[in-house]
């Protein structure tokens, strides 16, 4: 009973933290996924400069740990004259990571669209941009959707790294309560439960979606 009371007492602070976590996740996805689409097109571009810079952007975003990206944005960028709040730094760093990973997911989705679709679009007189916009991208994104949702769940988990840049998200709040009360175990357990309460149903939903989508294509 003590445990439940302790949890209830700290529930408002924890919910505040969870909201910040969700906001950062949202910001990273809203910026990162469209950027990922651009990068997916960029790595296939005919212009060398576009292709290589897209590849470099993707490789750095996937190769460097998210924690380092966060610290680079928060502790490193001020040296270049760009001072970001911890929220902005988190959004920028995680959006970079998101765009790098989702570009690979989206690229695989675009490649799954049969080549005949592109040819047919050209044959009926679509411009390259229109063919992408109306024919290729909508179909490719549909293929990529389950993987993108799965990645979004991972991104919510990755926001816990923002602890390192003093963003008051869920884990930071839990740690702060732990420091104040010395009740680390119960509060971290609570934080874990809150993450699980979102990620477990979301994971199940994504796998159900995946199953129902693959039923039609099989």
């Amino acid at each position, binding site marked *: 009973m003590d445990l439940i009371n302790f949890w209830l007492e700290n529930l408002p602070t924890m919910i505040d933290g969870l909201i910040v976590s969700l906001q950062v996740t949202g910001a990273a996805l809203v910026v990162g996924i469209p950027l990922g689409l651009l990068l997916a097109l960029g790595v296939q571009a005919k212009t060398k400069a576009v292709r290589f810079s897209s590849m470099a952007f993707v490789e750095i975003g996937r190769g460097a740990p998210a924690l380092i990206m966060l610290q680079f944005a928060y502790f490193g960028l001020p040296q270049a004259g760009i001072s970001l709040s911890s929220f902005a730094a988190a959004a920028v760093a995680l959006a970079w990571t998101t765009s790098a990973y989702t570009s690979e997911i989206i690229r695989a989705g675009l490649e799954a669209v049969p080549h005949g679709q592109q040819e047919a679009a050209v044959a009926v007189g679509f411009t390259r941009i229109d063919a992408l916009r109306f024919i290729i991208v909508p179909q490719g994104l549909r293929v990529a959707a389950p993987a993108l949702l799965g990645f979004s769940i991972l991104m919510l988990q990755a926001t*816990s790294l923002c602890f390192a840049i003093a963003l008051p998200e869920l884990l930071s709040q839990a740690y702060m309560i732990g420091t104040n009360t010395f009740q680390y*175990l119960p509060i971290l*357990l609570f934080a874990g439960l809150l*993450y699980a309460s979102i990620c477990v149903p979301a994971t199940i939903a994504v796998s159900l979606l995946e199953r129902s989508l693959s039923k039609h294509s099989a």
Partner: protein
Amino acid sequence: MNAETFLIILSGIPWTIAITVGAFTMGALLGIPLCAMRVSKSGILRYMATMIILILRSIPPIVWLFFLYFGIGSGYLQVGPIESSIIALGLITSANLAEIYRGALKSIHVGQWEASHALNMPRWSIFKDIMVPQLVRVILPSATSYMIGLLKDSAIASTVGVTEVAFQANFVSRRQFQGLEVFAVAGLFYILISLPIAAIARYTDGVMRAKVAR
């Protein structure tokens, strides 16, 4: 950035590798019974394994780490920063590798089991001579890309004070107030460590593929 700063960050590499290898080994071993449960005939075991895997994967690595280090470590049991990092990442790895193992098992055609039974091969020999060589071939590519992901996740060990690359980068950036190059170099180190892992994996994969090439 001067040579000294560079060397300090460089000195974190052994711990980064130790934690990655430690957690991967733990996960690779624990993943075997977990996968066995996941595909067992008993419904209860299957359900338990599914739940364990789901929960291990649904809570962020750094929360597991804090749970072990600050939660259990403060008062209940003495757990050092290195042990807790390896155990936290190892647990998550076991869940992910169990799923990779399961995918590999599914990829082996059921006729292989039937044929080996029909030839009256001993059980151990079926496992050692028929299954393992095929399993390894399927597991290796996904396991190595998971290992590269784990290498990057090992950066969270810096938050509990393991003196690996991310920790050293933090340390020098605070001392010298120059985060830009420091974190760029640290990020580059992770990319550089992951290159040989990927190269070895590609090479081994090529050798194994050549063995079955028709």
